[in-house]
């Protein structure tokens, strides 16, 4: 990238810059006309000077003055329209309006053009910077902070966009204005002109010196702010460490220190800026001071002695009018000069910013962009031998983590690499996956040198799974597909207006030098996964999940996931079939005791009072169990059915019991969270309330206490809480309330609730609840496990398990996959690598977080699934090497033993020792 911002701007936008410049010059012509027009309007239009000699004068007459030796000295292009005074004035006024409009339009167009050019350049710059991140060697990411990269691309280059539009136009325009004014002054009196020039020169000399420190400070401001962004990201990343080590105050001190530095820098910047401004203003006022003094002196001399002779007298002859003229001209001068100075300051500022940023984007060992070129053809398969010859890798400190490794292994022969920690086995795995740059030697597969293979081939044909799996914050499915997206395969279809917009979008991308590939195209390479259509791919995906034993987890996620009924009507229909099947099995009394189905005409004892009354799933927080009690409609229904008192009475009973049970417990005791209706903070309030009541009944409760008490029974579930509050007659009354609530439900509330309906899928509930269509009974031993088994059985019988799994695949894994467990992340990473059926699969101790038995099963599964293709597995447990064709034992960055597991085991050497030590 160009070190000079100006060269960069000129190289990428010269055509636009020139076009804008031409427009600016053109605008000046109109501007000049619009300035001279008012004079004509006043003199001729209103005062009617020209009409003193003629009744009608030509309007819009176009004449070109010709040298006198040609005809009569004038060439008339347009004779004009002859008008009397009043129409002439109207015409002139309209012309004035037209000029003003044209000027405005010019201004608008120029500004839009400048803005567009600036934005385009900003886009180009950002894209180029991002592009370079993709070309960073992976080792560089250990040294840079992501947040700093983000701030640079996002914030630090932002001011450049505003400047780029003015980069060339502004100095030309302002310089032109200043030169004109200067010329005028010179023409009035060259001595005064010289003085003005001298003062400008002083300004031009002093101000940059004043600004030197300002620029240094500006640089500091940028760096300190960037470091702060990095520090904030560190706080977020290291939040666990901060809490476990109790270092929050240390962090506070650090950030306070940084903010203090930033403050100091910024404040000094202000001081300097305003000092410079002050001096600048002072200097610009010195000039009129001198003009008054010197010009005045000349004028006085001229009046006192009009016939004076001598050099000074002849050169300096000036009248009062000339002095005023010079002053006026000078008045026009400071503004362009000042703006020019401002522009120059801005120029230096953005130049520094630009250098600051691009310096961070040129690390050593950048990847050759050609390796990332888009390939039109599918990647060829890699075959033959994996050959390493003298592979050496050095870390930052110059230590050799790999020291001259040589090895030849046919791809189809599975290879295990074992060794103690620090033996270099992980580095070897990474080097084979081309994640570590080698400082010597070479790696080849067949006759292809690994270092020269484009990423379109390595990305498709190699897979590396390390201990740290990064998952994108997308669905499980999208994360699985991630390994299949080397190039767009089927263009997205755009129609009509969309197609036009898309074309425009692409053209604009092209102008800014951005990629024109369409992220909405279908990038998923079916063939790579061994599928011919998406349904097959989905099947392959589920197969891989089973292989790494993740399918059950995804199924469970699916049960807790939701279906969008509008978008997936078939799936919803299928779940309804599962519901029917499950309910038909509830004829079996052993199962019937486990689930209490929803029935509009029966009170469900396993649901809370609130759920019983709603008999549906709230889709809005306003009808949540916590807020329902405060809902006016709900209150009205209870009051109408005479239940208000009953609720207060029940609340009173609950409050009494809670105060009795929990009064002795210290505040914050875990029992409060788990069992109490009343939080430990609220308990004293209820105790006081009960004391005030002193055993009196519901009638004595005050209005505000009634509200508090009436909210308590909403959470009540009889078999769980067992206070004996809901007897059969209460059940009847609550059923009545349920029906009344639903019957006259206002439309705006109806939208916020989805009622339970045996024949309809409930989009607000998850799949499991939809299949159950009821509540698990309290107090049934092992109910959850048994119901889970029952649901699985039903789904299997109807062949619907995959419907649920596919909903599970939509589960968003969260930032860096944090919504999955470490084990699930590892398995997903492995499944993603397996899905593309790589010619060489490198697994770098990637199963370490799993227990021994799972590791073993996974190893067997992967080896058998990948049989015939290359596997290099860096093992955490040396004993597992016995399942491989060949074993490499590493020590101190060197291969110390090599052979089949049998040979090595019998040799009683390093391998045997490693196995023995676990």
């Amino acid at each position: 990238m160009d070190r000079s911002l100006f060269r960069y701007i000129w190289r990428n936008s010269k055509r636009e810059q020139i076009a804008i410049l031409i427009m600016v010059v053109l605008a000046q012509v109109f501007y000049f006309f619009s300035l001279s027009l008012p004079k004509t309007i006043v003199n001729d239009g209103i005062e009617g000077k020209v009409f003193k000699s003629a009744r009608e004068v030509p309007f819009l007459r176009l004449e070109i003055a010709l040298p006198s030796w040609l005809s009569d000295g004038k060439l008339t292009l347009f004779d004009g329209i002859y008008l009397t005074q009043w129409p002439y004035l109207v015409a002139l006024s309209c012309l004035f309006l037209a000029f003003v409009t044209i000027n405005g339009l010019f201004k608008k167009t120029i500004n839009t053009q400048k803005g567009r050019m600036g934005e385009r350049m900003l886009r180009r710059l950002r894209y180029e910077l991002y592009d370079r991140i993709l070309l960073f060697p992976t080792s560089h990411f250990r040294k840079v902070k992501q947040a700093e990269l983000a701030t640079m691309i996002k914030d630090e280059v932002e001011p450049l966009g505003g400047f780029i539009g003015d980069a060339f136009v502004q100095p030309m325009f302002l310089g032109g204005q200043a030169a004109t004014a200067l010329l005028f002054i010179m023409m009035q009196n060259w001595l005064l002109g010289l003085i003005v020039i001298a003062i400008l020169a002083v300004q031009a000399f002093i101000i940059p010196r004043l600004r030197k420190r300002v620029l240094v400070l500006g640089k500091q401001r940028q760096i300190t702010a960037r470091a702060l962004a990095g520090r904030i990201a560190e706080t977020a990343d290291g939040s666990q460490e901060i809490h476990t080590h109790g270092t929050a105050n240390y962090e506070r001190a650090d950030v306070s220190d940084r903010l203090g530095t930033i403050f100091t820098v910024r404040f000094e910047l202000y001081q300097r800026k305003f000092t410079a401004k002050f001096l600048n203003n002072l200097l610009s006022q010195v000039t009129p001071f001198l003009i008054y003094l010197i010009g005045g002196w000349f004028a006085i001399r001229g009046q006192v002695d009009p016939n004076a002779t001598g050099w000074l007298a002849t050169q300096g002859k000036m009248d009062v009018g000339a002095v005023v003229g010079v002053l006026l001209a000078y008045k026009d001068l400071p503004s362009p000069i000042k703006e020019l100075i401002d522009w120059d300051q801005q120029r230096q500022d953005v130049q520094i910013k630009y250098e600051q940023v691009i310096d961070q984007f040129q690390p050593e060992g950048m990847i050759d962009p050609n390796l990332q070129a888009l390939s039109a053809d599918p990647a060829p398969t890699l075959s033959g031998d994996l050959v390493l010859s003298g592979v050496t890798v050095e870390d930052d400190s110059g230590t050799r983590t790999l020291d001259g490794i040589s090895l030849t292994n046919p791809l189809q022969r599975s290879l295990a690499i074992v060794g103690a920690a620090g033996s270099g086995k992980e580095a070897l795995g990474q080097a084979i996956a081309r994640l570590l740059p080698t400082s010597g030697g070479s790696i080849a597969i067949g006759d292809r040198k690994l270092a020269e293979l484009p990423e379109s081939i390595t990305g498709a044909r190699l897979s590396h799974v390390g201990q740290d799996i990064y998952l994108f914050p997308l669905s499980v499915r999208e994360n699985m597909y991630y390994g299949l997206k080397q190039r767009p395969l089927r263009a997205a279809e755009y129609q009509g207006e969309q197609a036009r917009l898309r074309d425009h979008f692409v053209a604009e991308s092209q102008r800014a030098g951005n990629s024109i590939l369409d992220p909405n195209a279908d990038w998923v390479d079916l063939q790579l996964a061994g599928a011919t259509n998406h349904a097959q791919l989905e099947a392959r995906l589920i197969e891989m999940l089973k292989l790494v034993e993740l399918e059950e987890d995804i199924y469970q996620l699916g049960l807790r996931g939701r279906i969008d009924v509008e978008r997936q009507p078939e799936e919803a229909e299928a779940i309804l079939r599962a519901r029917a099947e499950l309910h038909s099995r509830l004829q079996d009394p052993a199962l019937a005791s486990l689930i209490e189905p929803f029935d509009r005409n029966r009170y469900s004892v396993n649901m809370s009072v609130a759920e019983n009354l709603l008999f549906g799933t709230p889709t809005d927080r306003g009808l949540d169990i916590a807020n329902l009690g405060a809902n006016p409609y709900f209150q009205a229904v209870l009051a109408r059915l005479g239940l208000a008192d009953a609720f207060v009475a029940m609340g009173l009973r609950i409050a009494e019991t809670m105060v009795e049970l929990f009064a002795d417990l210290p505040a914050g005791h875990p029992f409060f969270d788990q069992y109490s209706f009343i939080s430990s903070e609220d308990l004293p309030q209820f105790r006081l309330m009960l004391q005030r009541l002193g055993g009196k009944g519901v009638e004595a409760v005050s209005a505000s206490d009634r509200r508090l008490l009436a909210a308590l029974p909403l959470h009540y579930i009889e078999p769980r809480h067992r206070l004996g509050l809901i007897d059969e007659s209460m059940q009847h009354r609550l059923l009545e309330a349920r029906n009344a609530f639903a019957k006259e439900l206002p439309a705006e509330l109806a939208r916020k609730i989805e009622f339970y309906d045996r024949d309809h899928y409930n989009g607000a509930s998850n799949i499991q609840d939809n299949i159950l269509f009821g509540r698990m009974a309290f107090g049934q031993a092992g109910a959850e496990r048994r119901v889970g088994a029952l649901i699985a059985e039903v789904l299997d019988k109807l062949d619907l398990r995959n419907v649920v799994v596919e909903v599970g695949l939509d589960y968003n894994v969260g930032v860096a996959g944090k919504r999955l467990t470490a084990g699930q992340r590892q398995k997903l990473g492995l499944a993603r690598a397996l899905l593309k059926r790589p010619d060489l699969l490198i697994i770098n101790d990637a199963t370490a977080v799993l227990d021994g038995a799972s590791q073993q099963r996974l190893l067997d599964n992967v080896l058998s699934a990948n049989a015939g293709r290359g596997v290099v597995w860096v093992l955490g447990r040396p004993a597992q090497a016995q399942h491989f064709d060949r074993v490499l034992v590493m020590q101190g960055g060197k291969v110390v033993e090599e052979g089949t597991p049998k040979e090595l085991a019998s040799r009683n050497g390093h391998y045997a020792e490693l196995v023995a030590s676990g």
Partner: protein
Amino acid sequence: MNLNEEVELLKAVPLFAKVEPAKLKLLAFTSERLTFNAGQEVCHQGEAGDAMYVILGGRADVLIDKQGGGQIKVAELTRHGFFGDIAILCDVPRTATILATEHLLTLKITKDMFYRMVQEFPTMAVEMLRELGHRLEDTNKQLRAAKSAA
């Protein structure tokens, strides 16, 4: 059965005989009531245990694995009986299998809960100790009887 009835029931359990009713009520409130059908196992010998059970109704057999397979019934538990206390006190696997022989209603007191209660109300620990002492004495008696018989 509501909470007060449960408390009455718990009072009749020897282990809780001397614990204040108020504390028993909290115990009952914070513990799950579990029903088992006839033929359902409550716990299995050798498995890890994390709860003790108090029988509120019904009947269960205490079975111990015989060497070489099969089980032998060593005792029968009925209303007010309790089991599973050894596993949560001593952190050992279940010492016996409990099989419901008829509809069995139990109060399940988790290990967590049990320790919290004991910490909250130390008098309960003393009661517990006394009860376990009695049981040890019973076992010793049986052992003596068995020895003299042999």
